[in-house]
């Protein structure tokens, strides 16, 4: 008798898995839903909230946190933490201002040197964490204190201001309406081209593709969102330059996370470092790179902040690391490592900025703002944990 290979009853398992996948999508939607609820809530309480002017301000306010959060996602996904980004923002902003205000450097070299400084700081962190095995919490906690100290030392406790117009432009100008529309049109065209090319590639490989109608509906929805955003921003002064930066970084880093070997390696390291090692992934180099990216983004955030307020102060960026971590966590990044998205973190930053902005408009006292934000953070994680538990049981 020919021995037969027993078949296992997987149909049932399959059904439960589909339920699981369905819930995963739900989590992303909950995030957007929460944002909409917050906006509607504030809009009902105050007419000024949903005006183009205020929305423009809102986006501007979230830009620094969003840039930091984008870098932080990779760090947290890799299973580490970066507590130093707030101090890096302060230090790099201070260095930029000193180079320009005290030494009269033109804007471009200032920006280049500042970003290089961020990269070097990231390299130092990465070396300590990856090659010397000192926990990231400690390394970056040390950095957080040390960089704040260096900032105080080099500025001698003074506020360094004012900066040149070309520098301020990074944080204060708006993309003119016509340029905004042209860019939007180009992006919409690109979206459709990309959608068709993706379909064509899949068909070339002989894979099933979703129906054309479904694909087009999805692309059109995204295109509509792009156009709506540009329209709203143009109602006021145009798209703020820092927001252009945030969006570009979000797209770039999403690509890094989802489409590159680097991104895949980082998620694998965070998910199971031993399995990653045995799969030939160079753990240390990847960790080093993650910290370099975080440091680089922090220096970018430092430039934006300094440009926006047109000054460098010794207190700049204080506690920003916690805002960035909160944004990641609200956006669904797991502190255990291995999972999290850039889009989620940016939305998380938007949620936090919306709360800040809405409460300010309502003239709520500062102490209330802290209490509300703290509560929302815990609730957001609770909802996340609760939904995960439900999935398991």
């Amino acid at each position, binding site marked *: 008798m020919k021995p037969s290979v027993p078949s*296992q009853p997987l149909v049932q398992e399959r059904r439960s*898995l589909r339920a699981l996948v369905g819930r995963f999508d739900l989590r992303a939607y909950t995030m957007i839903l929460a944002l909409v609820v917050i906006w509607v809530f504030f809009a009902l309480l105050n007419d000024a909230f949903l005006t183009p002017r205020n929305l423009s301000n809102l986006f501007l306010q979230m830009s620094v946190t969003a840039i930091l959060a984008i870098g932080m996602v990779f760090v947290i996904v890799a299973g580490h933490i970066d507590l130093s980004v707030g101090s890096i923002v302060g230090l790099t902003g201070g260095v930029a201002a000193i180079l320009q205000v005290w030494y009269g450097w033109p804007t471009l070299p200032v920006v280049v040197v500042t970003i290089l400084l961020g990269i070097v700081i990231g390299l130092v962190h990465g070396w300590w964490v990856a090659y010397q095995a000192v926990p990231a919490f400690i390394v970056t906690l040390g950095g957080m204190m040390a960089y704040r100290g260096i900032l105080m030392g080099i500025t001698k406790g003074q506020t360094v201001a004012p900066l040149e117009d070309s520098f301020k432009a990074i944080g204060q100008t708006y993309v003119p309406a016509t340029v905004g529309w042209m860019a939007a049109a180009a992006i919409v065209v690109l979206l459709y081209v990309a959608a068709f090319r993706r379909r064509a*590639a*899949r068909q*070339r490989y002989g894979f099933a593709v979703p129906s054309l109608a479904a694909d087009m509906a999805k692309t059109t929805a995204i295109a509509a969102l792009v156009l709506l955003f540009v329209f709203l921003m143009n109602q006021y002064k145009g798209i703020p330059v820092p927001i252009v930066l945030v969006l570009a970084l979000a797209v770039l880093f999403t690509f890094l996370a989802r*489409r590159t070997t680097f991104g895949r390696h980082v998620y694998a390291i965070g998910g*199971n470092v031993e*399995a990653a090692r045995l*799969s*030939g992934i160079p753990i240390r180099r990847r960790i080093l790179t993650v910290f370099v990216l975080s440091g680089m983004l922090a220096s970018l955030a430092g430039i934006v902040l300094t440009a926006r307020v047109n000054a460098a102060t010794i207190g700049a960026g204080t506690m920003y690391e916690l805002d960035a971590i909160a944004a990641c966590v609200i956006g669904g990044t797991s502190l255990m490592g291995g999972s999290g998205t850039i889009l989620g973190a940016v939305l998380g930053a938007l949620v936090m900025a919306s709360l800040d902005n809405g409460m300010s408009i309502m003239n709520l006292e500062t102490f209330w703002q802290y209490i509300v934000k703290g509560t929302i953070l815990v609730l957001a994680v609770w909802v996340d944990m609760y939904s995960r538990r439900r999935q398991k049981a």
Partner: protein
Amino acid sequence: MTATAETTNAAVRGKERGASAPLRPWPRRTAVRGTEAREAMHAYALEMRNITKTFPGVKALDHVNLKVRKGEIHALCGENGAGKSTLMKVLSGFYPAGSYEGEIVIHGEVRRFQGIKDAERAGIAIIHQELALVQGMSVAENLFLGSEPARYGIIDEPRLYAEARRWLDLVGLSDVSPNTPVAQLGIGQQQLVEIAKALAKRADILILDEPTAALTESEVERLLRLLEDLRAKGVTCIYISHKLNEVFRLADTITVLRDGKTVGTYPAAELDENRVIALMVGRELTERFPRVARHPGDVVLSVRHFSVYDPHNPRKRVIDNVSFTVRKGEIVGIAGLMGAGRTELVSSLFGAFPGRTEGEVVVEGTRVRIASPRDAIAAGLALVPEDRKQLGLVLGMDVKANISMANLQRLSRYGVINENEEIRAAETSVRELRIKAASLETPVGALSGGNQQKVVLGKWLLAKPKVLLLDEPTRGIDVGAKYELYTLMNELVRHGVAIVMVSSELPEILGMSDRILVMREGRIVATFNREDATQENIMLAATGGVGA
């Protein structure tokens, strides 16, 4: 279902009373059995009646019945996913009353457990596959974790240690001091500490889930003897194991589950290993090891005077001057007892062992230097590690990403992954290895053990290795999936891959290998051709007996 279970149980009683009961030297059990007719209800320490447990979309248990008599060792057999663990989680209160249908009767009384604490109070203790001891605490502290002898919240240390001594003696750990940190004990001793902990909680129904999976032969022996001893003292025990020889050595009664249903309850004396396997899979497996004729080719891997030093003790050699060769298209089995250095050998060949190495590794005539898994992969080696969840897979990632993980370089250009190539590669693996998953986007954590192992294998086959190192490739995998893995190994060998397989299952070593190396204390102490190898001469060599 109930009716059949009832009749078989009646058969058990009749048979044992007639034939085997007089041979057994435990008066207490015969006494119990004698009153059985009058107190049929109380003869059972435990009854689970018509238990049905549904997860969203899945019926994990479907009217399962389990009746365990007082003071017996009752084995629960079934393939992975048959529902054994779910049933035990229902019993131990992990799933609270109300989350399942049916009833649980303990010593004749219907019980509704709201949690694990409730079940413990009713005398039920479960000892998991993964040990639940706090490594940094002492044995005594672990024994009474959560129920420390204390007054006003202050722990009564002398009493703690005195009581610990008593329980340790009971489980045969007289040589272990209660002060010893658990981390200093071997796995086997830790297992016994777990049992002592359960007994200290006054448990009289013990559930052991794959207790011997990580134990050495002598530790297994010690455990089995303890269980027999406890049975003599009237402790009831539910024993879950894939190792049928242990089941037959211990069990009085065997209940087989399949696909969430009770197949039946039988006296152990009425069954044999093949019969149990047939009941588990629902058919007779005439051949457990598919055997094909092989024609080994040239030498692919040659290891010469290879030594590995203990990372914690730089003078101690974990692997001591080992030399062997592996030819294209053959399977070399490595047998040996736990701790003989088999895992250390394959993982250090793969560059994954932290200790310093000495000696030569030659792949296809070229000497290679392997300092990391990356070097090993480049040299054409692949390792399927022993512990797939800890070392082989990223459980939260999907099937596709796990399969492509070691091959991203080939699937990408300028560091950008070609998604479609990746999907194609993963689809090919899923098809060829017959991996059963809802989709490529399914997280591997949701797959069964056998399918997870196939994903690990798929990852390495994609890398097209010359030498495939397999460390306990079928551990914790059910019989059907094992057979599929063996078939796959045959196919690989036919395509010219050389396989080195470490296994603790002698039938598997004998059934699959062309040549067998036996290791003891870091050395290769014997080499057998397949024709000459028997369980006896392998064990003899492994234990250091004469004739090796």
